[in-house]
């Protein structure tokens, strides 16, 4: 079966690129799973989503926290353009947990604090990407 050519890039660097069997991302419409020979799609990713790249061939799945951006699919090429992204293996779990706690504290103080809500979302995505509960 044909493989997908996947590239995960953020404005400051290329985070990962390689081949994969399947890519699962979360767009504003919901989760989207992409397998080889998928129709061309351009989707907007949600803030604080988790991207999962199934590598197949016994390789471990690549998991990354992706904050905003796009996914574009054409001719078995998948590009994930993230405004900010972090591989699960690179996440500093303690820092993310700390950020989540702080965000939750400010949400409790002020329920309409949109910035804190966003920070909490991001922190959760980072924790989930790292394989922790959040």
């Amino acid at each position: 079966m044909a493989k997908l050519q996947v590239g995960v890039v953020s404005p400051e660097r290329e985070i990962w690129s390689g081949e994969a069997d399947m890519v699962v991302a979360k767009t504003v419409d919901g989760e989207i799973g992409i397998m080889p020979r998928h129709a061309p799609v351009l989707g907007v990713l949600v803030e604080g989503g988790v991207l999962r790249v199934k590598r197949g061939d016994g390789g471990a799945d690549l998991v990354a926290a992706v904050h905003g951006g796009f996914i574009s699919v054409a001719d078995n090429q998948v590009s994930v353009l993230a405004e900010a992204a972090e591989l699960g293996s690179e996440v500093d779990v303690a820092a993310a947990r700390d950020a989540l706690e702080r965000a939750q504290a400010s949400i409790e103080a002020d329920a309409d604090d949109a910035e804190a809500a966003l920070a909490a979302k991001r922190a959760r995505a980072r924790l989930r990407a790292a394989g922790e509960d959040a």
Partner: protein
Amino acid sequence: MGAQLRLLRRRIKSVRSTAKITRAQELIASSRIVKAQARMAAAVPYEREITRAVSAVVSGTTSVSHPLTVAKENPAKAGVLIVTSDRGFAGGFNANLLREAEALAGLLRDRGVMPVPFVAGRKGIAWHSFRGRPMGASWSGFSDNPTYAHAKEIADTLIEAFKDENGIDEIHIVSTSFVSMLTQAVVVKRVLPLEIEVTTEAPAAGPLPYFEFEPTADGVLDTLLPRYVESRIFNALLQSAASEHAARRRAMKSATDNANELIRVFTQQMNQARQAEITQEISEIVGGANALADAAAGKE
């Protein structure tokens, strides 16, 4: 004579310390160019992909009418983003840039469009405030090491002004592009409204596929276009940073060379002056001794 010798010695000392500073600046700049170039290269994949996505959306939808792509019929104001450096010591880097920005402003005025400068970098800000020119906005403190957050901040301000009814109708960027270590060129680009090229020729890589959009074409454009502008600005900032270091390295190299040449000339003059002093002293002593000898001979 002694005074001249002292003067030369003092000048050599001062030129030598200047040379030390310029040499250090040169070395710092050379090491930073490499880093700046690496950052430029790291940003390339994102930029390539986002440009591809924009062209896919724009050519895939039959009628593109998004506020960010449509040119106003009677543009009244144009925002000009001028990317200067925070520090000097970089030769003609900022002067060239500001001259080009002035030329663009002249062109815009000829078209009946009022240019509004948006300035990044302390040097550009100083230039504008010295002349009492109003600025749309200004940013500073990151010219030699810009991050994406800086680009986003600038883009947000510009897009906000662009969307405003009474704001700006066009966005231009004047920045320095890094061609090579030795060549940097000032470039003027229009970012918004997007220039859509209508061609009948098929693109080299075959027709772009028809995309499905999630959620909708308009929704994708709404988020895609600001990101595209951010990425253009980020690219301009990175290129400008690399160019700044390259320009500084060159300027500091020629300053160091000049200082070394000056030291050589002054040393020569100093040696001459010292020799002249010694010669004079000897001839004075000999003259004095002769006079004494003559006087003694006269007595006998």
